[in-house]
């Protein structure tokens, strides 16, 4: 039984809004730190959240190409986490 | 100099025959008698199911090497000792091998280690370079056997099918992925798909597959992996609920500990699968994966108990080695799991 007046698109948009709120909450950790890794972790989580938000928007606004961006964002997010955690290590790991 | 004692680690490579004769030749150059210690280092101990099979192979190899030695030595004064190393421990990285060799060398007063340039113990890829470094660190002198180029050529031919397998596998993986992304009925996608898959397999085949593919085993592993995924997801959900309960409780009763678990999975893909599964299961986080020694941070006691029970490890062993090898004792029973302090990270 689908409730009247509620569409799936609206649910997705609402969920995306709530995800944004959660992302803002997590932003506290990105600002507060206190270590580089804490910030990195927070940004990584924010990145995952962004991917989800993009996917929800893709479904909610019916713009499938948002998913392309979400995929790229996920890739860059992974690369960012690996790269920065590599370079925070003493000797820079490779550089 | 009265006599030389050399240690020759053997493994089943195409240059092993030449290595043995090199050891004899070079050993007899500056001494009139020679004592050759032939050893095979086993990567697995006898506790794991595949250990027995490997032991059998090792003994056969040793028997062959003894015959070769007898041939090469002729009437020179050569004595042979042979041994199988590592059946009471689990050898993993180059350092473990170096340690095992050093221990043996100390015991028998060996002066020199002669290494096969293609030395490849077990199933993992060549570890020659790191092994040499570890031998240096252990203070053991070594000599790389001078094997002839024909052997190298032979190796390439021998590896031909293996290389083909890699290119072939990656080509179809890439092509399949391309068609999933695109439209399999549109000619443009089919043509560009072939081109893209060609480029991808040519550039990345040897990067992606660092291990030899097995024509029979690899597809079976893929199938078994498909069974593993639902199990993993179930574990993840279960553990997530447990962790959520703990975190959302106002008192937040966490008990973080650092634990060390010595796993019994191969490096590379099995290790990745296990480490990532451990990380994906909330409550446990792989902090370090130095070869088979995983340092795992656990958040709540129940997660730690699950880790020590080793259900994920068994599942990963099932995926990569089949049902038989999944029946091993849990890390707790093996004594491979311990809680360590945070300063030992």
């Amino acid at each position: 039984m689908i409730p009247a007046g509620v569409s799936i698109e609206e649910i997705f948009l609402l969920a995306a809004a709530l995800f944004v709120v959660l992302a803002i909450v997590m932003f506290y950790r990105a600002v507060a730190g206190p270590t580089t890794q804490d910030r990195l972790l927070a940004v990584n989580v924010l990145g995952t959240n962004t991917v989800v938000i993009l996917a929800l928007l893709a479904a909610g606004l019916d713009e499938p190409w948002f998913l392309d961006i979400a995929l790229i964002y996920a890739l860059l997010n992974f690369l960012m986490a690996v790269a920065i955690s590599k370079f925070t290590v003493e000797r820079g790991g490779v550089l | 100099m009265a006599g030389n004692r050399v240690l020759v680690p053997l493994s089943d490579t195409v240059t092993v025959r030449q290595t043995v004769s090199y050891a004899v030749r070079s050993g007899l150059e500056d001494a009139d008698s020679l004592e050759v210690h032939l050893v095979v280092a086993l990567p697995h101990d006898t506790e794991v199911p595949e250990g027995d099979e490997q032991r059998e192979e090792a003994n056969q190899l040793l028997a062959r090497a003894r015959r070769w030695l007898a041939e090469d030595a002729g009437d020179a004064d050569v004595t042979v000792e042979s041994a199988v190393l590592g059946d009471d421990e689990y050898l993993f990285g180059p350092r473990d091998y170096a340690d095992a060799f050093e221990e043996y060398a100390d015991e028998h007063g060996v002066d020199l280690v002669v290494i096969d340039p293609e030395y490849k113990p077990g199933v993992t890829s060549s570890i020659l370079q790191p092994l040499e470094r570890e031998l240096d660190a252990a203070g053991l002198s070594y000599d790389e056997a001078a094997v002839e180029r024909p052997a190298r050529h032979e190796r390439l031919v021998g590896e031909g099918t293996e290389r083909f397998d890699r290119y072939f596998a990656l080509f179809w993986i890439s092509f399949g992925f391309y068609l999933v992304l695109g439209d399999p009925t549109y000619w443009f996608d089919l043509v560009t798909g072939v081109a893209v898959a060609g480029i991808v397999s040519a550039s990345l085949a040897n990067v992606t597959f660092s291990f030899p593919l097995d024509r029979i085993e690899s597809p079976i592993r893929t199938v078994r992996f498909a069974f593993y995924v639902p199990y993993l997801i179930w574990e993840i959900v279960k553990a997530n609920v447990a962790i959520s309960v703990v975190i959302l409780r106002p008192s937040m009763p966490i008990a973080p500990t650092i634990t060390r678990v010595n796993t019994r999975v191969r490096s590379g893909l099995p290790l990745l699968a296990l480490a990532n599964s451990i990380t994906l299961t909330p409550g446990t986080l792989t902090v370090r994966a130095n070869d088979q020694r995983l340092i795992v941070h656990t958040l709540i006691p129940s997660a730690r108990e699950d880790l020590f029970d080793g259900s994920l490890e068994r599942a990963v062993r099932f995926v990569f080695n089949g049902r038989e090898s999944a029946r091993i004792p849990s890390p707790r029973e093996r004594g491979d799991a311990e809680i360590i302090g945070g300063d030992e990270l």
Partner: protein
Amino acid sequence: MSRTDTYDDTYTESQVIMTSVRIIAPFTLTYGMFMSLHGADTPGGSFQGGAIIGVTVLMLAFAFGIEPTRRWLKNSFVVGLVTAGVAIFIGTGLATIALGGNFLEYDAFVETFGIAHYWGMEAIEVGGVALIVAGVVITLFFATAAGFTPDGRGEESYQAEVTDDD
């Protein structure tokens, strides 16, 4: 039991990271090429495709070390990539002029060869944008990784000039 002491001289990336990069790399490379080739269909497609191809290389560089990757991927190859991108871009543009249109006026192709507008776009997207973006991402990364030593400067500025054409 800490075994890090003797590993100092050869810091390698964790096996976990290395293996997952090995697994992901072919998929991202395929995906990047897919996006480049279908760039004309989606907004910004080729740019992202090129970026993914570039990022794949960077990922490999992180996992395997920058020097081995640099050796694997010849410097001249990357420069060639960018040059080819620029050449295709300009070539397509000039071809339209040669056929009596304006720079990059694809309609000229339609009249002459009877092929759709789409293919001119495709050439620009694939050749022009994707190759250049991938090449620039890789080049910039390796140039940065090499550090700004005076003897490396000449090469960098040369590459910067090439990329300015975009």
